[in-house]
């Protein structure tokens, strides 16, 4: 069996002493975490280790001895060999390094005194040893992906590398003692040259707790306001579920609750979620303020307000011309004159009403727009949602026309299909939810299911009428559906960009670019130069996660506005005349 030893790079030039670390359970390997230097008192070493064990839940033990003799220290070897009796172990490692040579020599002593050496042997007997050098600080800070839940540890056999990473990460308290501490023990690890800290980071950490408490209190005020009975009436609920501004604000409130909770993030996933939300919120606000500074400079907002009413007028005029065209002979098709006139006049009246309302509101538009523009300081996503809502309100008449046209067309189609079934002698069985055949008997016993000639006559009449009215209704339906689809497309683009800003994990991507060792996909090994007589030395480096995996892993889940139906389903619905809502939003389960 091959013995694998993970040795930190920072201890390569450490003075002689004891190796402290952990034997990885289930695999024939050990992780060295620190070196305790000579002189030391064995009793204090044991006390210190048991203290740390209770603090970190990692079973730290003395693994063996490390000897790097300097000038005048030749008598260390036998002393270090005798140490194995003081710290009873199943397996005692003796690592030694000479100045000037690059390789280490390693000897493993088993409990029964058998000495197993790593030497090149022809028949391949004896233990073989691999020494794997690792960068302690990077391994401590890094997180192996795919991230496993803490509870899953016992179910699946944890892999060796995962255990090594976990051991180093959990042994943080071991690295608090540095060379400036006046304790009885002198340790060597990555922080032994002196612990570094930043005053600003500490101040921010201290200040963040009261700030979080204050913001959570503000948030609770907002929730209390939202829980008023008057806001839970069905019409208000309905409107607020349709307006994307309200949806976005609800969504942001949920986010704030996550970010500003005073509880510290426990797992890596929670921490990344909090950080991503916080950073994307800051970027959102920054972009919103940029937008405001652009809008309010040179009085652009009032220019925008001034162009709004003429644009609405123009849209209405275009619609009127369209209807006049439809009422004539559109594209050379011959319409049913009476139905054409009815529908055309009906829609023209609607447009007239709409334009009157717009003109009624025109003196207040500039003021309203000025205040609404200020809401962009809550974030660019807010501004985009408001824009989407304004567009929805301004094109409300197009939506109404679409609904009327679709309903009419839908009625025509259903009537036609039902009457067509009548001719073929079939009936819709409501009980069985299927089409059954139905005879033309005049038998008294089956009077309720038979078709009388009268039924047949009326059916024929209605069928003919509907068939000849079909082109007119179909054309109106087609025109208004296309208009509606244009508006839906525009709103869809806005929603997609809002979604993108909400869900893009900016913090994770920044971490991947600036500190790639924090998000690790795996490890890389390099074989270091060999000297004969030394065991195999490998250099372990962290292989960072690919950018696409980062995006997939850390995307903040949003109320996604993905298409509800596939393309085929959409086309079918359009053909039959059902109302389509291509951008149906998934509501949160908490609401």
């Amino acid at each position, binding site marked *: 069996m091959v013995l694998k030893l993970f040795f930190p790079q920072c201890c390569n030039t450490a003075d002689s002493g004891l190796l402290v670390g952990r034997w990885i359970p289930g695999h024939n390997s050990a992780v060295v975490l620190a070196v305790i230097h000579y002189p030391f008192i064995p009793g204090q070493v044991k006390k210190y280790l048991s203290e740390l064990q209770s603090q970190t839940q990692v079973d730290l033990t003395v693994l063996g001895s490390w000897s790097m003799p300097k000038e005048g220290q030749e008598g260390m070897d036998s002393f270090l060999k005798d140490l194995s009796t003081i710290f009873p172990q199943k397996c005692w490692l003796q690592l030694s390094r000479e100045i000037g040579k690059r390789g280490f020599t390693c000897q493993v002593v088993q409990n029964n005194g058998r000495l197993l050496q790593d030497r090149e042997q022809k028949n391949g007997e004896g233990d073989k040893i691999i020494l794997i050098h690792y960068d302690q600080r990077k391994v401590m800070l890094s997180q192996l992906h795919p991230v496993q839940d803490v509870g899953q540890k016992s179910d*699946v056999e944890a892999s060796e590398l995962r255990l090594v990473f976990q051991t180093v990460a959990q042994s943080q308290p071991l690295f608090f003692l540095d060379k400036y501490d006046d304790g009885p023990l002198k340790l060597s690890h990555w922080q032994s040259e002196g612990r570094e800290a930043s005053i600003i980071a500490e101040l921010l950490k201290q200040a963040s707790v009261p700030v979080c408490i204050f913001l959570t209190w503000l948030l609770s005020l907002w929730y209390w306001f939202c829980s008023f009975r008057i806001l839970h009436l069905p019409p208000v609920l309905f409107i607020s579920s349709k307006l994307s501004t309200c949806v976005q604000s609800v969504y942001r409130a949920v986010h704030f609750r996550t970010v500003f909770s005073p509880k510290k993030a426990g797992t890596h996933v929670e921490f990344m979620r909090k950080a991503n939300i916080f950073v994307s919120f800051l970027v959102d606000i920054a972009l919103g303020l940029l937008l405001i500074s652009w809008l309010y400079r040179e009085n652009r907002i009032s220019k925008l307000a001034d162009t709004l009413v003429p644009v609405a007028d123009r849209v209405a005029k275009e619609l009127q011309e369209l209807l006049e065209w439809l009422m004539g002979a559109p594209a050379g098709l011959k319409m049913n004159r009476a139905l054409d006139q009815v529908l055309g006049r009906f829609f023209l009246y609607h447009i007239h009403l709409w334009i009157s309302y717009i003109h009624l509101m025109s003196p207040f538009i500039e003021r309203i727009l000025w205040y609404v523009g200020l809401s962009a300081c809550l974030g660019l996503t807010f501004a985009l949602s408001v824009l989407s809502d304004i567009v929805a309100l301004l094109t409300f008449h197009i939506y109404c026309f679409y609904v009327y046209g679709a309903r009419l067309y839908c009625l025509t189609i259903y009537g036609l299909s039902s009457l067509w079934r009548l001719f073929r002698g079939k009936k819709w069985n409501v009980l069985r939810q299927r089409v059954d055949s139905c005879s033309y008997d005049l038998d008294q016993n089956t009077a309720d299911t038979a078709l009388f000639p009268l039924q047949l006559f009326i059916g024929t009449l209605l069928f003919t009428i509907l068939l000849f009215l079909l082109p007119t209704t179909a054309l109106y339906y087609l025109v208004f559906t296309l208009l509606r689809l244009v508006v839906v497309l525009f709103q869809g683009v806005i929603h997609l960009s809002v979604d993108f800003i909400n869900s893009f994990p900016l913090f994770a991507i920044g971490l991947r670019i600036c500190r790639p060792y924090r998000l690790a996909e795996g490890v890389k090994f390099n074989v270091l130069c060999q000297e004969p007589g030394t065991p195999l030395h490998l250099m372990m480096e962290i292989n960072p996660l690919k950018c696409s995996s980062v995006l997939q892993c850390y995307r903040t889940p949003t109320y996604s506005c993905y298409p509800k139906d596939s393309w085929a389903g959409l086309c079918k619905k359009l053909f039959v005349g059902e109302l389509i809502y291509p951008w149906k939003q998934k509501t949160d389960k908490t609401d």
Partner: protein
Amino acid sequence: MRYARPKNAGDLKATIRATWALITPEQCHRLVDSMPRRIAAVIQAKGAPTNVISMAEEEFTDINGNSISLDCQTHSDFCREFTVTSPKLSLRKVMVYTCFVWLFAYAVFFFTENTAVLSSAIILTLAGMMIHIHFVKVDHETLLIIGSLGVQLSSSYASGRESTIFIEMNKLKDIVINEAVYMHSIIYYLCILIKDPADPETVTSVVPLFQSSNPRLNCLVQVYRSCQEILAQSR
């Protein structure tokens, strides 16, 4: 020679002569050329058996007939590294493509008198070359097998970028040579069978090796035998 099984002395002589005739002058040249390297390794090891043995590179080709080279390095009893080097970017092809694109751009410029065509052709050629070197052209692929630790596959691109995957030994079921039928040809490829440690009998996925260099069967057999020796030790 080992398959010959001569029955008498005459047979033995004939077999020896035939095998001697099969040794090509190129093989002799290669062995002579590698002598300085091997002597230097022995001197560095001070007479002990050398840890690093570089075998003579034999003539291998890939499935399309281009010549590739295989380099095996034995770092220790249970650690070996195989490097398959693809042929380098051919200057002739680069020149041909560039001339073609630029002649086309000049022709378009001749008709439209718009200099933006020329600058866009230059930018296109540069961008295309950079993308090709950085993402498409693989310089060499390496398989590092460390007994009882795992297997590492890495591809090194012409621009120096390296992409590496490490597979731990407990997830590795076996390394096998598989055959694939593609159109009119049968292609052999070396692949690693991955298993889930919780369920050791089923193969969850297959990772093919040397996908850019595509060496032929003789090269794969050498790599396979070497790997199986190491895998047998750790079982």
